[in-house]
């Protein structure tokens, strides 16, 4: 089975994050890591490869420093990577990102595309759907379990109430939540081998996409303004001078909790 895993480099969600002057995500000074959910996607791909054979390819669209995350992804065990890198991509919206990734996938002919269910920076949760739509293949999204039976894929889609069982034929795009598995740590051999694995870089021209279709120029929407989330309000203190209980209930009912 030919599997492609979509891996995005994001600023570490554990440290201070922000937007740059042009209202795009600040990536220069940030401590950049593999989008957490994508590690689960890699793990799932490697498990399927171990059972079914075939090849696992990492696909990333991102600036030069995304190469670091590609190397780390490869150290977990995938065979090779494709890095789409082009100055014109800066400022791309979700629609154009999906156009680029779909075009790159077109050169790879995957049976299965696995992505994280959401990135910790953009958080739009739409990339897998958009890519599937552009490629004209099925989207099995939000999986907490994936089984492969020949050319049939079955997922348990995690929902708030429980799960749904959804099936599709390959080729398809599957997106996964962090409930699906426990990602492996890179082995020392994996770490040493990562740098020697082939990483193909593609520019927009290689994908037949014009610079004007992506980036700020092609964005279907524009981030005009942003503001920091306001600091938390101090909360309301209820002093218990004998009728604290009543005061509590009054507060809770005023907020419609009871």
């Amino acid at each position, binding site marked *: 089975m030919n599997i492609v895993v979509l891996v995005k480099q994001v600023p570490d969600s554990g440290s201070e994050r922000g937007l740059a002057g042009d209202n795009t995500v600040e990536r220069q000074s940030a401590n950049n890591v593999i989008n957490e959910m994508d590690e689960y996607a890699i793990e799932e791909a490697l498990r399927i490869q171990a059972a079914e054979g075939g090849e696992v390819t990492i696909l990333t669209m991102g600036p030069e420093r995304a190469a670091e995350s590609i190397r780390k992804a490869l150290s977990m065990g995938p065979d090779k990577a494709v890095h789409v890198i082009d100055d014109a991509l800066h400022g791309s919206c979700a629609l154009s990102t999906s156009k680029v990734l779909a075009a790159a996938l077109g050169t790879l002919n995957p049976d299965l595309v696995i992505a994280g269910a959401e990135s910790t920076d953009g958080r739009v949760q739409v990339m897998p759907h958009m890519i599937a739509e552009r490629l004209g293949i099925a989207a099995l999204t939000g999986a907490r379990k994936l089984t492969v039976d020949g050319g049939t894929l079955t997922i348990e889609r995690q929902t708030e109430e429980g799960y749904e069982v959804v099936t599709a034929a390959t080729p398809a795009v599957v997106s996964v939540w962090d409930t699906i598995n426990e990602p492996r740590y890179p*082995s*020392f051999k994996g770490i*040493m081998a990562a740098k020697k694995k082939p990483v193909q870089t593609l520019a927009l021209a290689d994908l037949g996409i014009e610079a004007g279709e992506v980036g700020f120029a092609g964005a279907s929407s524009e981030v005009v303004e942003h503001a920091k989330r306001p600091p938390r309000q101090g909360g309301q203190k209820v002093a218990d001078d004998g009728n604290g209980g009543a005061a509590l209930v009054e507060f809770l009912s005023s907020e419609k909790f009871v």
Partner: protein
Amino acid sequence: MNFDLTQEQNDLREAVSALGRRYGHEYFIGKAKAGEHTTELWAEAGKLGYLGVSIPEEYGGGGGGITELTVVCEELSATGSPLLLLVVSPAIVATILARHGTDAQRAEFLPRLADGSLLIAFAITEPEAGSNFHRLGTVARRDGDDWVLNGRKCFISGVDHADYVMVVARTEDASTGRLMPALFLVPTDAAGLTRSQLDMEIVSPEKQWLLYLDDVRLPAEALVGGSTDAGLPALFAGLNPERITVAAMSAGTGRYALDRASRYTATRQVWGRPIGTHQGVAHPLAHAAIQVELARLMVYKAAALYDAGRDLEAGVAANMAKYATADAAALAVDTAIQAHGGNGMTTEYGVATLLGAVRAGRIAPVSREMILNFVAQHVLGQEKSY
């Protein structure tokens, strides 16, 4: 001059740290107090190739150097879940076998030392020969093709779950009558080998043992290197890796203690503000952090010199690193306890649990006095005093 690890070494550091954090100090202490071993951590680190980083690739290892093993030792210790036997099985024993073992010994032992499925303890210390190992009393006598060992060893770590013990004994050189060191691989279930546990005031899953060797009969293949001439160089081959990795463990433990303490002092409020705002609390921690970082630098210098094949210079650096990290770790743990107040002495806050271990670091595997002797003699050119 370059103070950076390579990209791969850094990736290794991150990976080992992530693994160690998943286990952590509570796991380590839980195992120690239950009288169990940190088997799961050992096995997982082995499977990931972290135990075998420095073993040659042709024998299933990672093909890295002592620097890589140093990274593994330090990072696990820095998460509060150190593996003492890294110093023994991969650092001392595997290095000795890789450098001085026979082809058959390498092929038999190294692949399983690399993945951690085999554990070999190391026994040199005797009741009458600790600092002074020229007085070894364990004797190996030739009997036909076999060897017969008699003697006693003490303080030997990890024998209860080791498959073999590499025992340092002496043989009699037939021509000169001089006693020469020789190393033997003794199965822990060999007839004539018995052991009893020493009661130690150290909270650790690894116990120390007294070993009694009474007419332990071994085949010729048990002699490391296949010749008694291999003994002395083999013994010396293990010393630098031992000191460097032990120093790395101390450095990691120091980092762990300071990390716990600084997280505590940044939030604990006594007079309405975090206690870390008092210089009386923060400065001792800062001082300890400087000592730990200085000592760490020497550990990596020693590892780099060793990996560059500069054994003599590495020897000086390794001894200095061992001395400095042991003191820095003891200081860091003591300071961390003080910063925690009463909580510092609880099990829950996980710093006093390290007292015994860091104190022992100033004694084993070589005492600070013997390092001072070494530096006085070999660096400062003083006459030997003993």
